[in-house]
């Protein structure tokens, strides 16, 4: 089971609360997207689940509290794709993706033939096998994003946290990345929790949306329930039209004031 439960989770930095106590249940295999204006606390929620930010309250994956795990055990359950992953230019794609096997190795352990086989399969799956020997610095933005996803997949963790997966990608690559994640989610039964900036795409790919504003959860529901003109206007202070697209979800279109 890879359902994720947050109970009264709050985060404070230097005494300033940036995330108010939050209760949230994400079912195993679900895609839940966190949306909200800049500074709403979307990334903070992801960082708390990955234990990159200290939090109060309880976060449980399956039936285990994340605080009860050691760092490697946590990384075997939760993989995180950062918004702007640090990609070392000189490192090859295969070496970078192989680092994703770290949670399965001892402190001074070396990767086994099985680890290399898993990585080879992930690279093939993401159409990166032709790039295996290429330095990361020679990849395009979209290829780098795929390499980062490959590294997260090599962790074989059932919960995937993604922070703004489509930042700085063109519309075609945004679609390709999200389709890929969705396909992997369905085939592997991954639980996906994503911080999403682009509302139309968030609505199209997510089962549910959690709308955060000023560090508080203000709405939780299906995309149809959350992506309303009044809701977006109130919390984003934006003038938008929400347009139904013949069964392909809704489009959130800004309109000029």
């Amino acid at each position, binding site marked *: 089971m890879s359902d994720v439960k947050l109970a009264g989770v709050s985060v404070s930095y230097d005494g300033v609360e940036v995330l108010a106590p939050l209760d949230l249940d994400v079912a195993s295999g679900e895609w839940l997207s966190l949306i909200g204006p800049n500074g709403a606390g979307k990334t903070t929620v992801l960082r708390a689940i*990955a234990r*990159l930010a200290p939090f109060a309250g309880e976060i449980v994956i399956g039936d285990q509290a994340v605080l009860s795990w*050691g*760092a*490697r*055990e*946590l*990384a*075997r359950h*939760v*993989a*995180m794709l*950062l918004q702007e*992953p*640090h*990609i*070392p*230019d*000189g*490192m*090859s*794609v*295969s*070496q*970078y993706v*192989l*680092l*994703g096997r*770290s*949670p399965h190795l001892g*402190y*001074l*352990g*070396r*990767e086994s*033939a*099985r680890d*290399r*086989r*898993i*990585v*080879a*399969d*992930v*690279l093939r*799956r993401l159409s990166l096998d032709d790039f*295996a*020997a*290429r330095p990361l*610095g020679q990849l395009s933005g979209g290829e780098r994003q795929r390499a980062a996803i490959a590294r997260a*997949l090599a*962790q*074989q*963790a*059932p919960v995937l946290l993604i922070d703004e997966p489509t930042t700085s990608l063109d519309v075609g690559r945004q679609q390709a990345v999200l389709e890929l994640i969705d396909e*992997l989610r369905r*085939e*592997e*039964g*991954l639980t996906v929790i994503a911080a999403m900036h682009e509302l139309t795409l968030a609505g199209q790919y997510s089962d549910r949306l959690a709308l955060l504003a000023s560090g508080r959860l203000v709405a939780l529901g299906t995309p149809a329930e959350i992506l309303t003109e009044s809701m977006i206007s109130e919390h984003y202070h934006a003038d938008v039209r929400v347009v139904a697209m013949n069964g392909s979800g809704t489009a959130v279109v800004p309109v000029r004031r």
Partner: protein
Amino acid sequence: MQGVKVRSAPVVLRGLPSLPVLWAAAGVAALLAACVAGALMGPVHIGVGTVLRALTGGVVDPGQANILWSLRFPRVVLGVLVGGMLAIAGAAYQGVFRNPLADPYLLGAAAGANLGATLAIAFGPGTTVIGLNIVPLAAFAGAGAAVAGAYVLGQTVSGLRSNTGLILAGVAMAAFFNSVQTYVQQSQTGSIRQVYSWILGRLVTAGWDGVLLVLPYVVVSALVIFLHRRLLDAMMIGEDEVTSLGISVRRVRLIVVVAATLGTAAVVAVGGTIAFVGIIIPHTIRLLVGRSYTVVVPLSLLFGAAFLVLADTAARTILAPAELPIGVITAFVGAPFFIAVMRSTRAASL
């Protein structure tokens, strides 16, 4: 992703770093050549045949045998240990701090060693402790104290996951130790020349004592750094990413820094604060061969050792019978060579 199917056929994963055989062979050859040069060259001419006979237990003139076994061989071995240690300690520091300008003295090891040695030279010349000269012991203690102080200070300032806090603590500690060292040096004018000579670096010629003093530290330190080469590679991807892979940045940094510092303190204690080796050797390897620590650690060990043995040989022969400080040679030869390598390769890959 629990269900990724694992194929049974062997898979060759292209692009994984490995130590190039030719470069490893070149490193061994360079080290051997440097050792031969170090044994042959000196104010007294001794031929190759004599050196070989001495090494294989053959009959050698007692005077020449004494020069080889008491002076040149231990000095060559000491050069190997000091050069190899400074080079891999530099590589290790650059790895854990993700900072290309890091060197083994980043956290104040040199300043601490200088202060320890200066105090010993100024106030206790000729003193021995359990049969050992007090100067290297004081330098070792000073280096360890400075780095330990920087670590404690860095931890209290911002926690060990912050590179910047720790580096700034090292800068502060080095500045403090340097100021005290300068005060002592200037106020004890009788020993100023000796202090200055020690600071610029000079391999001691006290037979095998120096070798035996540093050998255990260098072996343990080099082994620890060698075993951490995968984790040093992992540190290249950034602290949050490494942490999310279940690797404790704090633990890796602490273990590697302790190991590199112990080795550095030991070699600085007998060789003085020889500059530049810990910067130019690892970066030259990165520029010419590759960035992975699978490559950088073993080749830095070999080429660092060869470089320092050659530098020491030059230091004691150029103005023979007088000796130049070895730090003058390492910087004078190393800097132009390093600039030439940078200009001929892609410096951006540092």
